[in-house]
C-alpha cells in the first residue's frame, strides 16, 4: 500500500520531466508516473528542437536519470482522453498534472490561410524530425516565404538552407535529408509584422545564419547603425553584411510587413502584405507560418483553464494541475520550464491528499502496447546503433516500428 502520493504527469516533454525531477528531488518516495501519447518520451526535445542543436537536446540525459535513478516510471503510447479518460485518470491518482504542451500551429487568420502550400512551422518540423503522426513533407518550390519573427522561424530557415555536410553530428533522418537535398529553393524570405527592433529572435540565432555555407543574407529596413542598436539589430546588420562567395540561395529579412491575404487558386502563388508604404504583393511558392502555437483538441484545455482554481500557480481543480505551456501559454524556453518546476512541485505536494485506495498505474494494465522506460531504452539503443557515421541517431519513424522495438525479446 503506497504511503506517499501517487502522481500522474501527462506529457513527457520538458515541462513534465522537469516537474518529475523536481517532485522526486523534493520527496524521493513519491510515486511519479509520466504518461505520453507517443511510444517515446521527451516530446519537444525529440520532435521540436532543431536536429543540428544537439547541445540543447542534452537535457534528455537529465531526464533519463529521472527514470533511471529517481524512480519515475514511463507509460508511453497511452493517450489520455482516448485510451483512458481524464476522469478515470483522476480517479486513479492522488494528483494529475497536465503538461501536454501546445503543438498546433496558430493560423494566420487571413483569407487563403488554408490554401495548399501553407504549412505551419510545427507541422513542418514534425515531418522533418520524423514524428510518427506527421504529415508528408511538402513541396516548397523555389521561393518559399516564412512568416514570423521568433526563434522557431530561424530554426526552420537554418535547417532548410543547410547543405548535407552541415548536418554532421545531427540526428537528421535519411528521408528528410534527401528531401532537403531535392529542394530547389532559390530564395527564402522571412517577413515580420513588427519593425526589426521588436523581433523576438535571439541575436545568437541570427549570427548562426551568418555561418551557413551556401547562403547570402540580405536584411532591409534596419536604418542607419546606431550605438544603442539592440543586440538582435546588431546581429542582423552583421549577417546582412557578410558576403558568401558561392552563395546559391538568398535569404532575405523584411520587417513591418503584415500579411493581408494568401493568394492562389489551388495553391499559393503570392502573399499580399500591408506595409507602411501601402499594399505589396510578393510572389511565393509556399508559405511557412511560425507565429506561435495553440491548443490541440484532445483535452478540454480552455474549459479546464477557465474553471481553474488558481491558474497562475497551476491549480486547475481538486487534485488536478497544469504545467508548462499547457497552463501558461506558448511562451518560455526549456530553461524556463526548469525554473518553474521547483515551485510547481511544492504546489502539487501542498494541495495533494493521499488516498491509499487509488489504483495508480493499474488502470493501464488492460491497455495494449504500453511502452515502459525499458521499452524506450530498447528503442533508444536501436536508434543509436543504427546511426550512420555522420549522425548521432537514426530515428524509427513509424509507430508500429517503435512499438515493435519496444517489446522485450521473446525468450527462445
Amino acid at each position, binding site marked *: 500500500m503506497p504511503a506517499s502520493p501517487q502522481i500522474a504527469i501527462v506529457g513527457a516533454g520538458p515541462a513534465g520531466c522537469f516537474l518529475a525531477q523536481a517532485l522526486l528531488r523534493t520527496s524521493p518516495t513519491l510515486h511519479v508516473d509520466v504518461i505520453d501519447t507517443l511510444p517515446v518520451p521527451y516530446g519537444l526535445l525529440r520532435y521540436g528542437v532543431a536536429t543540428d*542543436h*544537439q*547541445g540543447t537536446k542534452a537535457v534528455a540525459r*537529465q531526464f533519463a536519470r529521472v527514470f533511471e535513478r529517481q524512480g519515475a516510471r514511463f507509460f508511453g503510447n497511452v493517450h489520455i482522453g482516448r485510451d483512458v479518460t481524464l476522469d478515470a485518470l483522476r480517479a486513479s491518482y492522488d494528483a494529475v498534472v497536465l503538461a501536454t504542451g501546445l503543438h498546433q500551429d496558430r493560423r494566420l487568420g487571413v483569407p487563403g490561410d488554408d490554401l495548399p502550400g501553407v504549412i505551419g512551422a510545427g507541422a513542418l518540423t514534425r515531418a522533418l524530425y520524423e514524428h510518427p503522426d506527421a504529415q508528408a513533407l511538402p513541396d516548397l518550390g523555389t521561393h518559399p516565404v516564412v512568416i514570423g519573427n521568433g526563434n522557431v522561424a530561424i530554426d526552420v530557415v537554418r535547417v532548410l538552407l543547410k547543405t548535407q555536410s552541415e548536418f554532421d553530428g545531427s540526428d537528421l533522418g535519411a528521408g528528410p535529408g534527401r528531401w532537403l537535398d531535392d529542394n530547389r529553393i532559390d530564395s527564402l524570405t522571412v517577413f515580420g509584422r513588427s519593425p526589426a527592433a521588436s523581433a523576438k529572435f535571439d541575436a*545568437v540565432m541570427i*549570427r*548562426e545564419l551568418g555561418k551557413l555555407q551556401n547562403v547570402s543574407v540580405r536584411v532591409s529596413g534596419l536604418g542607419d547603425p546606431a550605438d544603442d542598436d539592440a543586440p538582435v539589430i546588431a546581429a542582423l546588420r552583421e549577417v546582412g553584411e557578410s558576403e558568401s562567395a558561392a552563395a546559391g540561395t538568398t535569404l532575405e529579412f523584411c520587417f513591418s510587413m503584415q500579411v493581408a491575404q494568401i493568394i492562389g487558386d489551388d495553391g499559393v502563388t503570392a502573399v499580399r502584405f500591408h506595409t507602411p508604404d501601402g499594399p505589396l504583393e510578393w510572389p511565393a511558392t509556399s508559405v511557412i507560418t511560425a507565429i506561435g502555437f495553440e491548443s490541440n483538441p484532445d483535452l478540454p484545455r480552455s474549459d479546464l483553464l477557465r474553471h481553474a482554481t488558481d491558474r497562475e500557480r497551476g491549480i486547475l481543480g481538486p487534485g488536478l494541475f497544469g504545467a508548462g505551456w499547457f497552463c501558461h501559454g506558448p511562451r518560455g524556453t526549456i*530553461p524556463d520550464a*526548469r525554473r518553474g518546476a521547483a515551485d510547481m512541485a511544492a504546489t502539487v505536494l501542498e494541495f495533494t491528499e493521499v488516498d491509499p485506495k487509488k489504483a495508480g498505474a493499474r488502470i493501464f494494465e488492460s491497455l495494449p502496447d504500453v511502452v515502459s522506460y525499458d521499452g524506450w531504452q530498447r528503442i533508444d539503443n536501436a536508434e543509436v546503433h543504427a546511426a550512420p557515421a555522420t549522425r548521432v541517431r537514426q530515428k524509427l519513424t513509424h509507430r508500429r516500428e517503435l512499438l515493435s522495438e519496444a517489446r522485450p525479446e521473446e525468450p527462445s
Partner: protein
Amino acid sequence: MKISVLFGTETGTAEMVAEDLQRHLLVMNDVKLANLEDVDPDELNGDEFYLVVCSTFGDGELPATAQPFAARLKKQQPDLSAVRFGIFGMGDSGYEATFNFGPKTLAEMLTDAGAKQIGERAMHDASGRERPEDEVIPWAEKVLAEAAPLFAD
C-alpha cells in the same frame, strides 16, 4: 582534502555533471555540493578545494545560477587570495565566438579577486561526441592530483 563541488547552470546539465562528480568523489572524500546561486563569496575559504562546474548560455553569458554569485562577487569585492579552485567549463563550439565564455568569465572573476586556479580550465563541447559527465571525472582526478600537495598538512 575537503572538497566542495559548486555549479552554475541554466538548463540543469551542469548540475547533473556536478552531481555525478560528487557521487564519484564521495567514495574517497568528504564532498559538498552547492548551487552557485546559494553561495556567498565571503564564505569561500582556503581549507576547502573548490571544483566548479559552469556552463555557457546565450551569447557567451554566465548561466542563470552563476549570475547572482557573480553579482555578489562584484559587489562584495572579497579577498579570495586563500582560495584555490579548479573549473570545468561547458559550451558549444557551434557558437565559436563565445565558446566556453561562461566559465571563462567566472574563472577570471575568481582570479581577479585573488583566488588561484589549479589545473587547466576544461572546455567541454556540446557539439562534440564526448559527454560532460564522462569527461568531468578524469579532469577532476588530474586537478585533484595537482591540488593534493597544496592541501597536505
